[in-house]
């Protein structure tokens, strides 16, 4: 927790010194590191300059430089006609974005957090997701809805919900959730180029974290496929699936498990819809155990879908019951210690993985 806080402060202080887009020069170390914020900003910048039909709209995206500074510098560069500060009217401006997308423009609609998207969810689902189907292919909606999703630090119940499972249950939408800077850049570029509505779930606490990136990631045509998960760490004993911030936790849990001789395979889902069932199932067939991790509410969550999919397709390969780690089944409390209990922590993932690994070991052989 402290480490994350320190990294955030570092990230933010660097942000103040450095101009928006030149991300590389201030770090003189060997591997290039960029924060998720810079990754998103550069992705938006490049896509806007490549295609004049791309425009941004949302609250505070322009003169305020973005509520979380993701759209910093873009107003100066592209002008108020392409970076629109909207009034506080989620339903209205989301609908306007959808209407503009019907006519071939490519809006990127920012929600200050995805909690506010509930005021506009009618447009995301009914006018955007379903339109291509209802019009039998006549009207496609190349729109991106992006913003921070899930719990932040101490923001209370109405600002902390994770919407991955809500949006991912709806056909006609693509739902992406990046973890590191490479994911953020690649997936956002893929989302903007995509001809269908995409819900892009970021994470506020990851914005300030830096990750190493290769030159290929920084290239302006870099794009990650939608619908493919990434195996962040190979292993053979248990499969841990996660998305967004939980990937970081899972990787740390895997390091702890390594010391116990449990080699965990960590899958970064990247794409919640379409879900990469083939990668997950292939991994479970290799390791025979599954632990799904997510931050959202447990009932009808992403983990529930993954578990069902694995049970349906790879039942014979399972050596232990599937394990689901999710947020607590309560609205997010405010008190810091309660909040920590309401969100999965690294210890929870480690415990679940251990449970998954020992359950089918006969008692006589337990060491």
């Amino acid at each position, binding site marked *: 927790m402290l480490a994350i806080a320190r990294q955030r402060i570092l990230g933010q202080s660097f942000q103040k010194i450095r101009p928006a887009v030149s991300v590389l020069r201030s770090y003189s170390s060997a591997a290039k590191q960029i924060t998720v914020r810079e990754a998103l900003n550069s992705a938006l910048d490049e896509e806007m300059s490549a295609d004049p039909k791309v425009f941004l709209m949302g609250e505070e995206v322009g003169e305020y430089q973005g509520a979380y500074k993701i759209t910093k510098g873009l107003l100066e560069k592209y002008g108020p006609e392409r970076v629109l500060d909207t*009034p506080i009217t989620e339903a209205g401006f989301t609908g306007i974005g959808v209407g503009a997308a019907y006519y071939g423009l490519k809006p990127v609609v920012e929600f200050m957090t995805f909690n506010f998207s509930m005021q506009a969810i009618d447009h995301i689902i009914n006018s955007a997701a379903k339109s291509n189907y209802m019009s039998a292919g006549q009207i496609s*909606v190349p729109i991106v809805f992006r913003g921070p999703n899930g719990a932040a630090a101490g923001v209370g119940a109405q600002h902390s919900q994770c919407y991955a499972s809500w949006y991912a249950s709806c056909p006609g939408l693509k739902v992406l959730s990046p973890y590191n800077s490479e994911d953020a850049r690649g997936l956002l570029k893929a989302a903007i180029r995509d001809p269908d509505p995409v819900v892009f779930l970021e994470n506020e606490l990851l914005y300030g974290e830096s990750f190493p990136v290769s030159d290929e990631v920084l290239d302006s045509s870099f794009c990650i*496929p*939608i*619908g493919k*998960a990434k195996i962040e760490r190979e292993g053979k004993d248990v499969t841990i699936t996660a998305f967004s911030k939980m990937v970081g936790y899972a990787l740390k849990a895997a390091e702890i498990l390594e010391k116990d001789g449990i080699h965990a395979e960590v899958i970064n889902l990247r794409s919640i819809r379409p879900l990469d069932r083939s990668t997950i199932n292939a991994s479970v067939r290799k390791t025979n155990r599954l632990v799904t991790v997510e931050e959202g509410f447990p009932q009808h969550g992403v983990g529930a879908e993954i578990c069902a999919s694995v049970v349906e397709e790879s039942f014979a390969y399972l050596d232990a019951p599937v394990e689901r780690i999710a947020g607590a089944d309560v609205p997010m409390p405010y008190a810091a210690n309660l909040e920590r209990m309401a969100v999965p922590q690294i210890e929870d993932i480690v415990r679940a993985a251990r449970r998954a690994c020992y359950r089918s070991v006969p008692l006589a052989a337990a060491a």
Partner: protein
Amino acid sequence: MATAFSAPKLAAQPFNTISPTSQHKPLISPTAASPFLGSTRKLLRLSSSSQLNLRRRSSGSVFAVSDIVKEKKSTSIPSLLITKEEGLELYEDMVLGRAFEDMCAQMYYRGKMFGFVHLYNGQEAISTGFIKLLKQQDSVVSTYRDHVHALSKGVPARAVMSELFGKTTGCCRGQGGSMHMFSSEHNLIGGFAFIGEGIPVATGAAFSSKYRREVLKEADCDHVTLAFFGDGTCNNGQFFECLNMAALWKLPIVFVVENNLWAIGMSHLRATSDPQIYKKGPAFGMPGVHVDGMDVLKVREVAKEAIARARRGEGPTLVECETYRFRGHSLADPDELRDPTEKAHYAARDPITALKKYLIENNLSGEAELKAIDKKIDELLEDAVEFADESPLPPRSQLLENVFADPKGFGIGPDGRYRCEDPKFTEGTAHV
């Protein structure tokens, strides 16, 4: 009452729109010569002595247009509002709308049509009056009561009827239905089932027209969008959000309120604190106009000005058309709450009969010609029903089609092609 607030504003208007007594009295007073003919109140004659001017003065003006055309008609040498061709076009369109909806009712009771069907009988003057002034590239956004908007915009009757029967030859291949009529060729974008859902989408379509002209530099793009919606929608938050943004960004849109005084069984007067919807326009900085929606010629005059205003880039207009639906909210609605005298009053003001009378009295056409049009439309509809009947149902393979524009939903790669076409896509996991 609410009207008290608008009194000082109207007093400052440069011209006298309505007789001074009207705006100062509360709406429910039966003695006020209110331009707004509320349904459950005593019906009033408009004072024909007020002097009215059709042309818009400044933005923010509020006036009722109902008297204007009456005035013009009663002066000695009338300059006719329409030519013969235009008159016949309007007549044919309205008869098509009416006959189509009647045919829908028949088909519904025969079991060929199902689900929710909302008919437009009685409101044809608005659809014809507005949509017949549009170009093909202008957009129309409607609600679930969209059959006639589709027909006026040019979608063939065959395509609409097939869509209603759920056949694969329908305008949306049977996947949309009665409430979701889309045609990208005719720029009819919906068909929305949710109240108020179409308004922001229409505002977005207008936004795209402005964006094309100013940012993408397509200099001749002056497309206008019409958003049609009802009186119930005018109490919805999205309506106000869009009035604000359309006026703020001066979008080329006309908000057309089809005020038929009833939202299913909820009377407009029971649901709205200030029932005069046209007054809500100036609160956001756009002109608000009230017009008699049972008279296609009056609607057309107002529509001409509003659409021209939008095309010139002067921004949005709110037009409230007072109209009535002769049938219930939908074919499943028993329609018990509406007063029969009210229904009779509006039935006497049937827009088609009124236009017919106008055409004959002004020697623009004769009975025989109009009857020939009626017959032509009947034949057209018989053909449409036959076509829809004989069309096949959608095949099983169509179920999973059109979910995404992108064939398998995996997005577009950096080379610009669909990912699923790349043979390497399914190899291993994604990596950088």
